[in-house]
């Protein structure tokens, strides 16, 4: 993807986000596998008029169509994952960072924890 195309895509994502939440913003909407459709306007899992690549379309009878589209797999992160270097560095917090420049060196002190969660009210 060219840099220009990437910028346009990013701008579209930002516009979408300012309008409201959406999986479409992540480019994930509209990619579903076989859909048995019992009424033509009803596309199971597929937005009407979407431009996802249709792999196949089979008409079973007058009312039932099977539409097969490409489903993208979960993608790895662009930057990968690296082990943090040993040792502690400054923690950047929202309160500190509003007027602060990015941290000058790799930090080892985590700013967040990933783990299982118990939902709270």
């Amino acid at each position, binding site marked *: 993807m060219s840099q220009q195309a990437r910028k346009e895509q990013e701008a579209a994502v930002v516009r979408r986000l300012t309008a409201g939440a959406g999986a479409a913003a992540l480019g994930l909407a509209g990619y579903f596998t076989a859909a048995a459709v019992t009424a033509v306007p009803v596309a199971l899992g597929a937005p009407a008029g979407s431009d996802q690549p249709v792999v196949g379309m089979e008409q079973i009878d007058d009312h039932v169509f099977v539409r097969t589209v490409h*489903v993208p797999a979960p993608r790895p992160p662009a930057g990968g994952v690296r082990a943090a270097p040993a040792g502690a560095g400054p923690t950047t917090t929202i309160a500190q960072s509003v007027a602060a420049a990015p941290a000058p060196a790799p930090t080892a002190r985590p700013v967040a924890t990933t783990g299982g969660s118990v939902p709270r009210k």
Partner: protein
Amino acid sequence: MVLTGRSGPAGRPAARRAVEELLAQVDRACSRFREDSDLSALNRADGRWTAAGPVLLDALDAALWAAAATGGAVDPTVGRALRVAGYDRDFGALGADGALVALRLEPVPGWVTVELDRRRGRVRLAAGVELDLGATAKALAADLAAAGARTASAAAGVLVSLGGDIAVSGRPPAGGWPVLVAEDCDEPPEGEGEVVLIATGGLATSSTRVRRWARGGLEQHHIIDPATGAPARGPWRSVTVAAASCLEANAAATAAIVKGAEAPAWLDERALPARLVAEDGTVVTAGGWPRPAGMPA
């Protein structure tokens, strides 16, 4: 939420507002425990078409994508199975143990039974089918919150953590965002454990350890195996995955718990960096997960 870069004095409150508004929208649309949510209305519809707002439609898009991309391992039609297993109210209101009940376990109806008509803004579930969007809605919200907070604050980079589902947007700090990998997201970031750096996308952990309850003395947890309708009984108690978005990371992590022994190969095939913790505490890595600093190769 963590911001980097210059965003001006209004940046922080603007970011916070953006995140809070988004989370309120997602809760109103997707909570299984709110009588007035769009999802609750859909689950009560008994086979009728139900109008759905854009947030629920997007959350369903995400849930159906996750189901398709994981071969059905992460399936939103587990709602009834979760309720039957005893997860029938907000987790904080669940008792530690409930009465012994006769459970009739059966495979969940399956995500392909969900009819989604985006053009008309409506959804239909077969009678008796109930959705739970727990495996995807929070992660999707984290992705959207990170992007929204960045837009609202004009920060260079943003990290948002929603109960351990982590999404980043924009420019990371030099070296990347340092994140502690734990089994419980309540572990303070400065706690003991493995620390990794991510620059883009998301990081998520699915665990059978933290959301547990009992029915008739039988331990239950919230990750349902769609093939059986019962809590997954695989070799992993916790799986952490990094991916291009938090949604993708959480879908893969939950799928790994359900897929069990085949999960490392499944993650390797997709080059998804993952850390899997077995029931006995043994750590297995896949997809290029880094070796901790200082550990010999």
